[in-house]
C-alpha cells in the first residue's frame, strides 16, 4: 500500500463561515487563500506564492520618474450598497489615491481582517467584486494577507489596500500647488456614494434610485494629464470623506490660498439633493468615491474640461470656481440664492439637525 492521495473537502461556500482556524496559518488558512483569494485575483505575481511579490521596474522610473505609494483602509457598513460593495471600493479608493498624485497605478496589495462567523459566501462575493474591479482597472492585486479576529471584534470584514504607482518626470501634481487664478473643476455630480450608503443604514432605510459613484479614476487622470501642457495641472484630489467642501478647504490650507466657488455651478443629482434635504444634510459634505476636483492654470482650463467631458467618468465635469489670494484661506461661495457665505471644514460627522 502506498501513501493515499490527499483529499481536501472544498470550502462550503453556501453555508460555511469564517472560524478561528482560517486565521491560524495552517491548512485551513491555505485552503481559504487558494479557493477564495488566489482563484479570484489570479496573476503571475500571486502565483509566485511568496510572502511578497517581485515586481519589474517600470520604464518611467528609468526616465527620471518617481514612485508613488498610498494606502487606504475600508470599513464601510453595510458591506453591500447600491452601486458597489466594500470589495470594489477597496480597489477604487486606493487606485484613486495613487492617481491623484498624477501617477499611473501599477500594483495593489490587499489585507483582510475577517470576523469569526463571517459567511464565506459573502467573503467570496466581496473578493470576486474586488478582483473584477482590479481586472477592469488593469491594476493587479499582487500580494495579500488574511487575519481572523474573534466574533464581536470586527464588523464582518475590513480591507486595507496599498497601491504603488509611478509618476512620470515633470508631473508635479499636489495639494500645495494651487495658485491664485487657477480654475477649479469637479469631474461630475457630487454626493452619490454617501447617500447610497446612508439609504441602506438600518435606522434609516429609504428607497432611492441613487447608486454609489465608486469608480477608478486613473484613466480619467491620464486623459487630463495628456490634454494640458506639462505643469498646467496643479492639484488633483478625490473628495471622499468630508465631501467637496472639506476637500477644497484641505487644498486651500495646503496651498495657502482662498477659493471662490459658485453654488449654482456644482453638479448635484436631484435625487441626492432631495435625500439631503430630507435628512438635513448638505451635499457639499457628503462622500464621493468616483469624483475628483482639479485646480488648473486658467489658460488650460477649457482643454482640460473638454478632455474630462470626453471620458465616461467626466461627462458632467464642471467649472465651479477659482483660486484666489487670501491669507485667511477662506473657501467662499456665491449661493444659488444670491447670497455669500463661507464653506467651512466639516466639523465632526455630518449629523442631521433636529428641526
Amino acid at each position: 500500500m502506498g501513501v493515499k492521495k490527499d483529499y481536501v473537502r472544498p470550502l462550503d461556500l453556501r453555508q460555511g463561515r469564517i472560524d478561528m482556524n482560517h486565521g491560524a496559518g495552517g491548512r485551513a488558512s491555505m485552503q481559504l487563500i487558494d479557493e477564495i483569494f488566489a482563484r479570484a485575483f489570479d496573476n503571475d505575481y500571486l502565483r509566485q506564492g511568496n510572502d511578497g511579490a517581485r515586481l519589474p521596474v517600470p520604464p518611467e522610473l528609468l526616465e527620471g520618474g518617481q514612485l508613488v505609494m498610498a494606502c487606504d483602509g475600508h470599513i464601510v457598513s453595510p458591506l453591500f450598497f447600491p452601486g458597489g460593495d466594500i470589495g470594489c471600493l477597496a480597489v477604487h479608493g486606493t487606485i484613486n489615491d495613487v492617481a491623484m498624485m498624477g501617477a499611473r497605478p501599477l500594483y495593489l496589495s490587499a489585507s483582510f481582517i475577517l470576523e469569526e462567523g463571517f459567511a464565506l459566501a459573502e467573503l467570496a462575493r466581496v473578493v470576486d467584486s474586488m478582483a473584477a474591479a482590479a481586472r477592469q482597472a488593469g491594476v493587479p492585486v499582487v500580494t495579500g494577507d488574511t487575519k481572523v479576529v474573534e466574533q464581536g471584534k470586527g464588523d464582518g470584514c475590513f480591507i486595507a489596500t496599498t497601491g504603488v504607482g509611478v509618476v512620470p518626470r515633470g508631473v508635479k501634481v499636489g495639494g500645495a500647488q494651487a495658485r491664485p487664478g487657477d480654475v477649479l473643476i469637479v469631474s461630475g455630480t457630487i454626493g452619490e456614494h454617501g447617500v447610497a450608503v446612508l439609504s441602506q443604514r438600518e435606522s434609516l432605510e429609504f428607497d432611492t434610485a441613487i447608486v454609489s459613484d465608486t469608480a477608478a479614476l486613473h484613466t480619467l487622470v491620464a486623459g487630463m494629464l495628456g490634454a494640458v501642457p506639462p505643469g498646467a495641472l496643479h492639484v488633483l484630489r478625490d473628495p471622499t470623506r468630508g465631501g467637496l467642501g472639506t476637500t477644497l478647504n484641505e487644498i486651500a490650507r495646503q496651498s495657502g490660498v482662498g477659493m471662490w466657488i459658485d453654488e449654482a455651478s456644482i453638479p448635484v443629482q436631484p435625487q441626492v439633493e432631495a435625500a439631503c434635504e430630507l435628512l438635513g444634510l448638505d451635499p457639499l459634505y457628503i462622500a464621493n468615491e468616483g469624483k475628483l476636483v482639479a485646480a488648473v492654470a486658467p489658460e488650460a482650463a477649457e482643454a482640460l474640461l473638454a478632455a474630462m467631458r470626453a471620458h465616461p467618468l467626466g461627462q458632467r465635469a464642471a467649472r465651479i470656481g477659482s483660486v484666489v489670494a487670501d491669507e485667511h484661506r477662506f473657501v467662499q461661495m456665491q449661493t444659488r440664492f444670491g447670497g455669500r457665505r463661507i464653506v467651512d471644514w466639516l466639523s465632526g460627522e455630518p449629523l442631521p439637525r433636529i428641526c
Partner: protein
Amino acid sequence: MKYVDEFRDGALARGLAERIAAELRPDRRYSFMEFCGGHTHAISRYGIAELLPEAVRMIHGPGCPVCVLPVGRIDQAIGIALQRGAIVCSYGDTLRVPASDSLSLMKAKARGADIRMVYSAADALKTARANPGREVVFFAIGFETTTPPTALVVQQAAREGLRNFSVLCCHVLTPSAITHILESAEVRQYGTVPIDGFIGPAHVSIVIGSAPYEHFAEEYRKPVVIAGFEPLDVMQACLMLVRQVNASRAAVENQFARAVTRQGNLAAQRAVSDVFELRERFEWRGLGEVPYSALKIRAAYAEFDAERRFDLHYRPVPDHKQCECGAILRGVKKPVDCRLFGTVCTPENPMGSCMVSSEGACAAHYSYGRFRDVREAAA
C-alpha cells in the same frame, strides 16, 4: 426639486431685497431677532445677511434646541448610560454637545456607553421593544416641534405596557424664552438692544399656532411675523417687519400661511397636555433659569419619566466665565465681541452654547460668515 426650488429662487430674492431697500427709512436702522435656529441656519446657509441692506441687522435668538440644552441635562443622560447601563437614544446633533468631565454623548459612547442615534421618538420605542431585558431611555429635547412625537410615544408605551422605556424630558417652550428676552434688563430698561421685531418660528408655530405671539405684539409693542424656513420666506418676513415698523404697527402676521393657523395643531396640543405639565423653572444654557419655560412628565405617566425612574437630581454646571453666550442670545453682543470666539471656542471645541450646533449664533457666524469680520476690520 419641486416645492423647494420655488422658495429658493435667486431672482425673486433680488427683487425682494430691492423692495426692502426701497422701503427702509433712511433715518433709522432695523434690528430683527429670528428666534428659531432653523431661521438662523437658513440665513447663514443661503447668505441672506449679504442680500439684506446694511441697515437691517438680524439678531440670532435662542431657538436652537441643542444650544440651549444645559450641560447638567447632558450629564444626566450620560450618567444613565454610563453608570446605570441603559441604552440612551438621542437625536443626532445632541451627540456632540460638550458636557462635564470633557465628555459628550459621543465620547461617552467611546467609553462603553450604549448611545444610539435615532431619527424619531418612535425609533426609540422600537429600540425598547427590541431590547426587553434593558432599560431604554429617550433623551427628549427640543421646542414644541419635537414635543408632540415624544407625547405620542409615551402614550403608546403606556398602552403597550412597556416596562423598560422612559423619557428624559428636556422639552422647552418658545413663548417663555421670548418673554425672558423681552423682560431682560438690556431690552426693557436700558433699551441698549433695539429689537424692533421678531421673525416667529416656522415648525413650532405649526404646532402652537400664531395666537401665543399676540401677547408680545400687544404687551411689548413688538411686531411678529411667523415665517417658513425657506430663504424667500425669511426675506419676505423681513419686508413685512419693515412695513410694520414704518407704520408703527405691532401685530402678529403670518407669512407661513401655507402651514400655520391661528390655533395650531389641536390634536398635537391635546397629546402634549395629556402627557406633560409645566416645570416651575428650567435652566437654559446661555439664558440661565427661566420660569415656566419647560415641560415635565405628568404623574399619571410617572413610570415613563426617567428622572423619577432613575431618581435623578439636577446639578447645574456653569459655563466658562468669559463666555458671552447669554449676551449674544439677547442680542446685546455679537459673536466677535466674545474673547473666546474663534480662539478657544470653535465648532470643534465649543465652550459655550452658541457654538454647539450649526444653528447657534456663534457656530453659524464661524462656519458661514467669518469673511464679514475681515471686511469690518479692514473698514
